[in-house]
């Protein structure tokens, strides 16, 4: 599991690659939660790019739920984008899209979550 960061104006994009399972969920949690602290009203928009995420177990889902719970408590803007079919089918069992904002693509997500970040993303491509 790898996480790489990119900033587009007020949005932090974390690209998560590999597998979120029993071996990697703790590391993912330790990486993600400090960023969630800054995901608040007037702070960072936080978006996870799952286009290279191959696998997620319920432990990975727990970390995402925790992040959403904290972001919501801080009135922050948090979402995930570009879920692959294998990952989406697991998350669908838990009605994931009912509790966490899911977008088809990073571009689509930033277009909804932050106009300035969307502009920066398009300029940076």
């Amino acid at each position, binding site marked *: 599991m790898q996480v790489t960061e990119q900033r587009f104006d007020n949005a932090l994009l974390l690209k998560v690659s590999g597998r979120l399972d029993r071996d990697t969920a703790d590391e993912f949690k330790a990486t993600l939660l400090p960023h969630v602290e800054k995901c608040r009203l007037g702070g960072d928009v936080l978006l996870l790019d799952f286009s290279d995420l191959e696998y997620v177990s319920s432990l990975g889902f727990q970390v995402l739920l925790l992040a959403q719970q904290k972001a919501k408590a801080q009135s922050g803007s948090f979402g995930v984008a570009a879920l692959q079919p294998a990952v989406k089918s697991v998350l669908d069992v838990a009605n994931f899209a*009912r509790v966490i904002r899911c977008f088809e693509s990073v571009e689509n997500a930033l277009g909804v979550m932050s106009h300035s970040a969307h502009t920066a993303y398009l300029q940076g491509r």
Partner: protein
Amino acid sequence: MVTAQTRQFNARLEPFSAVREFIERFCAGAEAPKRTGEELVLIVDELSENTVRHGYPSIEGKATEWPIWLTLSVSGRDIVALYEDAAPAHNPFDNIVPPDYSGPAESWRIGGWGVPLIARIAGSLRYEHSGGRNRIHFTLPIDRTGM
């Protein structure tokens, strides 16, 4: 013809990747589609997480060995799996209650999705306790034509 294979793992010490590699090798030999392999990995991932989180830690005095056994075979067009541990008897499928997220976020229960996931994916799911082991039997299709 793929022969049945059983492997014992130490759920406390071995990374889950060791279990995953065993499953992936078996599925390749059985010519199972990628999706079947992924679902088998997911089910065993969730079962072993339950063993590690709830099963062995509940033993008084704490067990030093945390063995799990996985037996895989092929029957007809199915992969037949048996997952076992030696933790205290417990049927995780007795009363499945998925977490409810209809309330406010601060009231959400973080966790509890492993068992509903297994129940949704696994075929012919059956629990028994015998010979001092929790035994969970299930199947997954090799042939997904028409699914």
